[in-house]
């Protein structure tokens, strides 16, 4: 039994309380991605595709890009920018995209292909407050900051105020 599911299930009630429940462990941004970190990871090591055959201008996608279940968010943790006036890969008006990001490796169910996702926070305004989404797979403690989602990744921005998080496809990865 997955306790987290229970927790999140309860929060689907669209009440203020439900919303509050979704926040408690926020875990800002930053997730574990085996291919990038390398080393002995608990998630499968995903060497990046070198073959031109895999090349496509962009992955075909389907599903609700503002649902926490969407494939790109396999390692996201924060308010989805698509619910905040941005989109899954752009920031809402008046925010600043963090130049320092964390990386996930997510499988696109449409093509079964793994893609490298850069999770860039949008910064400089207070919490968006919508569509809080958290997945802790691959998260590690804060002494391993590149894979720790208890960090606020609004670093290198004019303001460290955290607003929401994007999920930007930056490459394809090949399974072992």
């Amino acid at each position, binding site marked *: 039994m997955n306790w987290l599911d229970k927790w999140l299930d309860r929060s689907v009630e669209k009440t203020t309380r439900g919303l509050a429940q979704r926040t408690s462990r926020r875990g800002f941004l930053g997730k574990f991605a085996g291919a990038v970190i390398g080393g002995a990871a608990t998630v499968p090591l995903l060497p990046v595709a070198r073959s031109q055959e895999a090349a496509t201008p962009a992955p075909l996608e389907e599903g609700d890009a503002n649902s926490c279940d969407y494939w790109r968010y396999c390692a996201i943790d924060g308010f989805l920018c698509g*619910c905040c006036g941005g989109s899954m890969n752009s920031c809402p008006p008046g925010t600043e*995209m963090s130049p320092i990001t964390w990386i996930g490796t997510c499988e696109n169910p449409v093509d079964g292909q793994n893609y490298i996702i850069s999770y860039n926070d949008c910064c400089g305004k207070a919490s968006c407050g919508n569509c809080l989404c958290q997945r802790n797979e691959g998260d590690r403690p804060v002494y391993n900051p590149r894979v720790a989602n208890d960090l606020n990744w609004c670093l290198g921005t004019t303001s460290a105020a955290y607003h929401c998080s994007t999920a930007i496809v930056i490459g394809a990865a090949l399974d072992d």
Partner: protein
Amino acid sequence: MKKLIFLTLLFASTAFGQIQPEPAGVIQTLPESWPPHWIIVQDGAFFHMNSGKFIVVDADSDDPATRFKGMFNGTFIPQFFQAESRPEMYVTETFYSRGTRGVRTDVLTIWDKQTLSPVAEVVLPPKRASQMPMNYHIQLVDDEKLALVYNFTPATSVSVIDIVNRTFLGEVPTPGCSLVFPMAGRAFASICTDGSMLSVQLDEDGQQASTARTDVFFDANNDPLMEKAAMVDGVAYFPTFLGRMVPVDMRGESLEVGDTWSLLGAGDDGWRPGGLAVTGTDGAGRIYVLMHPDGYEGSHKDPGAEVWVFDPATRQRVDRIALQLPAISIGLTRDDNPLLVATNINLEVDVYDVASGEFQRTLSDIGAETPFLLHGAN
């Protein structure tokens, strides 16, 4: 692109798949002119006043995820005004150097409608009225060249700002009188404790040139004018606690109090105006008033059950919109096919089509704690 530096470091020894990476660093912008059914939800964040918000929402949207167009912050129960001639919005807010303590700074922040970014600020005397959000704390006059901000310390005054050059010009006392109502030219009116109104003419430098007082024309104790007036074509329409409507013509050099009429018709006994934001107007110049039945002393801020629509020319009620849930505040979009929006008692925003009178949808999950005021976008 600064943001790529860290990525480059990470991937220095790792090859990428050969797909085209999506562009990074994209920041959305909004149109300079907003669609007519966008609204601005003013969230006073009453339990977290240092984290207030103005949330731009598409009131036509049935998609809870995409109806949210953007937001900007306003601190410590800010007040709000939109320009018509410029894509600008004005927020007066208060900051303390240590959150709730330390040195106080009051500013008028100018927000750009396309970028939802602060493009300038004018530091004000730290006197702005700390009150519940209301529409006559900030006004623009003289073809939107001057901004006026109501102060309360408890001495009352008005700060005058050259909003084109974004400079503070000075402070005009309004002893015994409160708020700012826009008059023609470089002038404003305030409403006074004794049941009169004050008008103030400003000179070229934004200083007080002359003032005038009306006679006492209302009973501030027994049937006070609600300060939450509806303005149509330069005339302010003040509902009273007991359901009269008092027009004050502000188009001339002096104020002219018009004839009072009643909001109540046959069979309307007991209905009264009430709520936090009680009035609204649409592009056709109709006046909307939030009404509740069975009024009593103290019910003037109770949630309303219906919105009554009046034609100020004929002084007749022309429509009556039953609310699906009682509401504490109403607002109107500013187009010819207006939506009525209402903060319901669950602190969600309900949307009604004015033409049909029908409930359309509830805008919940927009990140608002206490959506006190609703503004149709200019």
